[in-house]
C-alpha cells in the first residue's frame, strides 16, 4: 500500500522494472455505477454488459508514456457496497489519484458523491488528486443527472469533471490521462515548493547570524 509513500510518488527504486514512475489510482463510487467496466475499457479495451460485482478490491495495471516518462498505473477497483466502505477506505491512504464515479442514470449515486468526497478528504493523502466522472453517458434516454449539475458539483468540490461512457468508449482514456497529468503537475509543483521549504530552513541559521557582531568599525 505504502509503496507510494515509500518512494516519493512511487518513483522506482530499482532500475530493472521498466517504468519511471508508478501511480496508484483508486476508482470509487456507489455500487453498479460502472467502475469495473470503466477500468476494463481502459486497461483491456473490452466491454461486457455485466461484470461480476466486485468483492473487496481488485486492480489492473497499465503503463503509459507521458512527457517521455514511462508511468505505470496501478488502478485499484473497489466494491461500491456500503458494507465494503471500511475495507476500501483503508486503501485510500496510498493513492495518488481518485476517480470518483457516479451513474448519470442514477440520482442516488450522484447524491452520494459528496459523501465519497468527504471520505477521500478523511482517509487519503493531502495532495491526492480527484476527478469526478459521470459514467454511462451513452444512456441519454435514461439520464437523470444533467451535465450541468455534474459540472457544478465538481466545481464546488474543486475536482475536474468528465462525462464518460465505458460502453461507447467515450472519454475513458481522456479521464485517466488527465488524472495522470494533474498528478504530474502536482508532483513537480510540490518538488518545487520543497525548495523554498529548504531555503526556509536556511532562514533559521540566518536569524542566528544576527548574533555575529556587525562587520564594520562601529563603536563597540
Amino acid at each position, binding site marked *: 500500500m505504502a509503496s507510494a509513500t515509500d518512494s516519493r510518488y512511487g518513483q522506482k527504486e530499482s532500475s530493472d522494472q521498466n517504468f519511471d514512475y508508478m501511480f496508484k489510482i483508486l476508482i470509487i463510487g456507489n455500487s*453498479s455505477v460502472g467502475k469495473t467496466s470503466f477500468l476494463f475499457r481502459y486497461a483491456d479495451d473490452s466491454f461486457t454488459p455485466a461484470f461480476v460485482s466486485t468483492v473487496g478490491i481488485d486492480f489492473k495495471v497499465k503503463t503509459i508514456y507521458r512527457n517521455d516518462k514511462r508511468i505505470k498505473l496501478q488502478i485499484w477497483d473497489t466494491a461500491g457496497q456500503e458494507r465494503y466502505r471500511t475495507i476500501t477506505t483503508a486503501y485510500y491512504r496510498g493513492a495518488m489519484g481518485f476517480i470518483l464515479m457516479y451513474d448519470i442514470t442514477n440520482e442516488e449515486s450522484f447524491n452520494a458523491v459528496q459523501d465519497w468526497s468527504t471520505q477521500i478528504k478523511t482517509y487519503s493523502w493531502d495532495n491526492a488528486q480527484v476527478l469526478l466522472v459521470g459514467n454511462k453517458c451513452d444512456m441519454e434516454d435514461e439520464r437523470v443527472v444533467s451535465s450541468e449539475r455534474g459540472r457544478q458539483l465538481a466545481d464546488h468540490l474543486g475536482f475536474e469533471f468528465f462525462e464518460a461512457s465505458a460502453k461507447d468508449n467515450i472519454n475513458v482514456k481522456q479521464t485517466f490521462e488527465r488524472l495522470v497529468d494533474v498528478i504530474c503537475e502536482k508532483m513537480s509543483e510540490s518538488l518545487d515548493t520543497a525548495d523554498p521549504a529548504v531555503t526556509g530552513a536556511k532562514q533559521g541559521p540566518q536569524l542566528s547570524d544576527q548574533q555575529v557582531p556587525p562587520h*564594520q568599525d562601529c563603536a563597540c
Partner: protein
Amino acid sequence: MAADTEPESEVFEITDFTTASEWERFISKVEEVLNDWKLIGNSSGKPLEKGIFTSGTWEEKSDEISFADFKFSVTHHYLVQESTDKEGKDELLEDVIPQSMQDLLCMNNDFPPRAHCLVRWYGLREFVVIAPAAHSDAVLSESKCNLLLSSVSIALGNTGCQVPLFVQIHQKWRRMYVGECQGPGVRTDFEMVHLRKVPNQYTHLSGLLDIFKSKIGCPLTPLPPVSIAIRFTYVLQDWQQYFWPQQPPDIDALVGGEVGGLEFGKLPFGACEDPISELHLATTWPHLTEGIIVDNDVYSDLDPIQAPHWSVRVRKAENPQCLLGDFVTEFFKICRRKESTDEILGRSAFEEEGKEIADISHALSKLTEPTPVPIHKLSVSNMVHTAKKKIRKHRGVEESPLNNDVLNTILLFLFPDAAFEKTLDGTTSTDNNNLPLESEDYNLYNQFKSAPSDSLTYKLALCLCMINFYHGGLKGVAHLWQEFVLEMRFRWENNFLIAGLANGPPDLRCCLLHQKLQMLNCCIERKKARDEGKKTSASDNVTNLYPGDAGKAGDQLGPDNLKETDKEKGEVGKSWDSWSDSEEEFFECLSDTEELKGNGQDSGKKGGPKEMANLRPEGRLYQHGKLTLLHNGEPLYIPVTQEPAPMTEDLLEEQSEVLAKLGTSAEGAHLRARMQSACLLSDMESFKAANPGCFLEDFVRWYSPRDYIEEEVIDEKGNVVLKGELSARMKIPSNMWVEAWETAKPIPARRQRRLFDDTREAEKVLHYLAIQKPADLARHLLPCVIHAAVLKVKEEESLEDISSVKKIIKQIISHSSKVLHFPNPEDKKLEEIIHQITNVEALIARARSLKAKFGTEKCEQEEEKEDLERFVSCLLEQPEVLVTGAGRGHAGRIIHKLFVSAQRLTESSDEAAAMAPPEEEFKRIGSAEERRQNSVSDFPPPAGREFILRTTVPRPAPYSKALPQRMYSVLTKEEFRLAGAFSSDTSFF
C-alpha cells in the same frame, strides 16, 4: 566582427613590449579588471537617500590578480541602485566632481548600523579594494605600500575610472586602507592613522579639529566652518535589576514527593541564560557646527542625555542554551543508539516475563477460585510492583534506572484510568489539553503523521522525552518502555481497554506505533465483548454445544488462558485452530462443519429455503424498515455481522502486496475475489441465520440494493404489480456471489469463525512492541515530539505575539509535514527541523528578555505600552532602532534608568573593592577623559566615540576649486583611528 578583432590582437602584441616589468603588468591587470567591470567614466547616481545604506542591497564582485607571484584579490563593493539614464547626463556632468567625492559630504547615512568599514568611514556608495588574497598575507613595508598606491594612481589615471580604489596594507585585522579617487582635474587621497592608544591631545573634539585643519592646510582665513557629526556609544552589560527570570527546572522537585502529573505532560521552554547579552546605546549629534559646542580636555557639552538622537542595538547571546531545543535534540539522539532494551537493562527483559505473569495469575486464580471471572481490581501499581520485583531479582534494587516515585507518577499520567477504580471504557481521561477537536492545531497530527495531542502515544512520547532528559537517559527510556509493554500485556490479558486512544480501527494518518496500540485496543474490545457475551449466554447452554473444544474453553477461563498465552506467546492462535493462518481460510471455513453437527442443524446444510424456514432465527440485529422476505412476506431482519478485520498500515501493505502479486489475469482476479470473500460469506451466513428460508434476492436487496431490479408489470388480472429480479451481473452463472450464497450455512455471527483473530493479532502487536529498541521507539515517536514542540512554540509565541516568529512557525509546519510524511525521513532533514524549532525558541526567549528589561508589562498607559512593545519588537528584528524622543522619550527614560542603576552597582562594588586590583585604579587615572566622565555620571564612559568632520575648501591653493574634505575618527579603549579623505585640485595649484 572577427575581422575587426584580428588586427587589434596584433596591435596588442606589439604594445606588449611596454608591459615588460612585473609592475607594469600588474597595473595593466588592474586596468583590465576596471574595464571588465565597466567602472570607467563618470558613474553618477542620485543623491543618497536617508538610510539607504541599511535598507538598500549591497553587492560585490571579485577577481584575482597577481603582482609577480603575490596574489591580490580585487573586490568591487557597491550599493545596488536603480539605473539612471547616464547617456543624457554625461555631457552635462563633464566638469562635475566624481560621485564619490560628493558622497563624502552627504550626511544622510552617517553611522550606518551595518556596512563595510569603508562605507562607515567615508560614506561611499561604491569602491574597489585591492587586498592580499591570502588571509595571512600582508603588505607591510612602506616602499611596497607606496608602490601599490602608485599602481592604483596610474591605473586610475590611465582608465579614467572615478570609483575610489583602495589598497589594504598591514595585517588584515588592522583594517588599514589607503586609496585614491580621481576625477577631471581633481583628486582625493584617502589616508589613515591607526594606533592602539589615543594620544592625549586627541581625546576630544577640539584636538581632532586641530588635526583636521592642519591636515587640510587651508590657505583661506577665516576657514569655512567645519560641520561635525558625533556619536557616542554606551554599553550596558549588567542587567542586575532584571535577573533572567528563567531558572532551569528543579529536577529534585520532580523526584521528591510532590510530583504532579502536570510536569510530564508539558515540555519545558525558554533559555537558561539571558539570550540578550548587551545593550548598546548610541547617542548621536548628527549636525553640529564648529563653535556651537565645547568638548576639550577640561569640559564637555556632550551630555548623552541631551543628544538629539538615540538609537539602540542589542547584542544577542550566541546559541543560548534553550530547554525545548535541548529536549528534542537529546531525544533525537536516541534514534542513533543501537542497543536493544535487553542490552541496556542488562538482562533478558522479556524472556522470563511469561513465567512471572503465569505465576501471578496462578496466585490470583487461587484467590478467586472457583469462578474464572477476570479480576478487575488489578491496577498499575500491581504491575509496577511485579516489574520492580523482577528487576530486583535480576539486578539488585539500586540499579533500577527509574525510581519508583517517578515511575508511578508517569504510569499514572499515562494511564489515569488505573488511578480511579472506575469502569475502564477508555473514553474518559484527565486531560489538561484544551484544544478543540476540530482546530487546526489539533489536526496537526494528520500532517505530521504523529498522534493526536490527547492520545496515549503522544503522552508516552513526552514522558520518554522527559525521562531521557532528567531521569536516567537511555536506561530510563528502556525501563519505561518495558513497563509500558508490560502494562499493554496486562490490559490485553485482563480485558481492560487502553485509555487515551480513539475507538475504531487504526487511524492510518497516525504513526505506526499509535496504530499498533489502536489495534491492540480493537483486540481487547473484541475479546472483552466475546467474553462478556459468553457469560451472559451461559444460560443458553451455548457453550455446552462445544464440549470438546479446548480452545474455547481456555478462552473462557481467564487465568488459565493467560497462562497459556504466555507460554505459547505468538503461537497462542493455534489453540483457535490454525484456520486464520492459512491463506485459504474460506475453504476451511466451508468445510468445517463440526460445529454444525453438534448443533443438530446439519440436516439443513443442503436443504432448500423451505426447510430452512423451520429453523429458529438467530443473530438478528433489528428489523428492516420496509423489506419483507420474498417468499413468505415475513419481515426481513438485519443480522448481527462480524466486523471486518482492522488493519495497521504495515498489515495493509502486506495484504495489498499479496493481492497485487496475484497479477492482473482473470484467474488472479478471481483468486483475489475469493480471498476477500470471507466477509461476504460471513455476512451471508449471518443473514441466513437471521432470516430462515431467505433467498439470495433477499440478501441482495439488503446488501447491494441496486442489484435487485424492480419493474412494474401488469399481471393477467390487469393489476399493476412490482416484479423484481436480480441484476444481470448477479445472474451470471456461478459468479462469486451465487457461489458464496450456495455454500453459506445459516450460522449467526457469534458462532462463526472469527474473521479477525484478535488473539493472534494481539500477540503479534505485543511481540512487536516488545522487540522495539529504544532507537526504534524514538523514531516512532519523533513525529509526536516534533508535533509537541511545534505546539509548544506556537503556544509561547501566542503569548508574545511576534509576527516574524509566526511566519517561521508556519514554515516549520509545512516543512515538517513534508519531511515527516514519508517513512524513514533523513536524519539531516530532521535535524534541520529541530534546529529551526530551537531558533524560534531562542527568538521568543529574546523577546521575553527584552520585554522584561523594558518592563512593557508594567507600563500603565495604553499608548506608551504600545509604543514600547513596538520598540521592543523592532529591537528583535532590526540591527539598530531609533529611540523616539531620544533621552526624553518613554523608552529613553527606561534606558537611562537601566544605565543609572548599572552605574550605581559598579560604584558600590568599586567602593567595596577599594583594595582591589591596582590595575583598575591605574586605568581610571590613566585617562583624563574617563576621569572626567566618571564623576558620578549616569552613564559609564562611552565604549566608543566617533566624530565625522566635514568641510569644503579650496586646496592646495586659495584659487583652487573648493572641494570636499572629510575626516572620520573613532576612539575606543583598544584603538584610535583617523580616516581622512582630502581632496585637491590638480589643475590649479
